């Protein structure tokens, strides 16, 4: 990964520079108009957030069953990224909704369950920071619960009546909209892999520093 880091970072940067041009060239949506362009960042970031919740949950499960510190470090990194991506989704969504629905927020199934998902990962981070000894295992349980919440958030738009676009929107996108959407998704996925790598490295270095301090105390 270290060898691939710089080339991938260059690719991601180039994709982020090119993405606005693709989004500008994409056709307008018939009922929402210009504001629908938020979709090209909002939805791919939401999908990356789901992926990150799964990475955190799987890492936590591996840590709970095998006690591998590497899995725990990946879980911490993924939890922080889930929280960051979650804030972006929860802010860009209402900006889109204000124009498309006429309201900033609606307590419907998708929006509320997304907020709950974000709160679960915030709880994970708070536990890790202030939970004291043993909080790593407790937080791992919370992460698995958070991961289990993801399918409910995803399917909520199809099960409950809501103003939010359904999951059928992405598979039925027409070519003019499909290209920019998947391009942005790829860019955010590469960005996610790179930041996950960096954040995991930070946890590894912290563990090394702690081990050095413990060794000098002994």
């Amino acid at each position, binding site marked *: 990964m270290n060898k691939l880091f710089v080339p991938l970072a260059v690719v991601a940067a180039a994709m982020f520079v090119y993405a606005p041009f693709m989004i500008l060239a994409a056709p307008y949506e018939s009922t929402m108009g210009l504001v629908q362009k938020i*979709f090209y960042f909002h939805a791919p970031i939401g999908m990356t957030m789901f992926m990150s919740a799964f990475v955190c949950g799987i890492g936590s499960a591996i840590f709970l069953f095998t006690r591998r510190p590497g899995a725990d470090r990946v879980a911490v990194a993924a939890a922080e990224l889930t929280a960051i991506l979650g804030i972006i989704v929860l802010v860009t969504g209402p900006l889109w909704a204000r124009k498309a629905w006429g309201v900033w927020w609606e307590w419907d199934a998708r929006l509320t369950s997304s907020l709950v998902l974000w709160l679960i990962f915030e709880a994970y981070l708070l536990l890790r920071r202030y939970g004291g000894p043993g909080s790593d295992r407790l937080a791992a349980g919370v992460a698995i619960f958070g991961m289990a919440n993801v399918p409910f958030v995803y399917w909520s738009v199809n099960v409950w*009546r809501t103003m939010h676009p359904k999951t059928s929107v992405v598979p039925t996108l*027409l070519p003019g909209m499909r290209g920019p959407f998947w391009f942005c998704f790829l860019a955010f996925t590469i960005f996610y892999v790179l930041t996950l790598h960096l954040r995991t490295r*930070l946890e590894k270095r912290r563990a090394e*520093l702690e081990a050095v*301090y413990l060794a000098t105390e002994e």
Partner: protein
Amino acid sequence: MIPKTTVACVALLLVLLWPGGPALAQQQPPPAQPSAAQEGFVPVDQLPKPQDTMPAARLVAIAYAFVWVMLFGYVVSIWRRLSSVERELESVSRRIGSGGRTP
């Protein structure tokens, strides 16, 4: 012998949950007609006429600016934390190497 209160509670529960019971006797609101934007996006060449005074361009600009600021800020934050820890690790390792005590 089953207490009378338990029997009363069960009876009340049965009445409430009975399919023809008063709790479900209320008419359910008719399902809202899904709009086109809920089922799928329909592309057009021209912008539709605005019905809302809120300028869409400003909302789009704020959304994109927020995404950039958050992502850039997060990368900078990781980079600064990583540099700080690596500096400290190097400093402690050097002190140990020279036989000095850590604070």
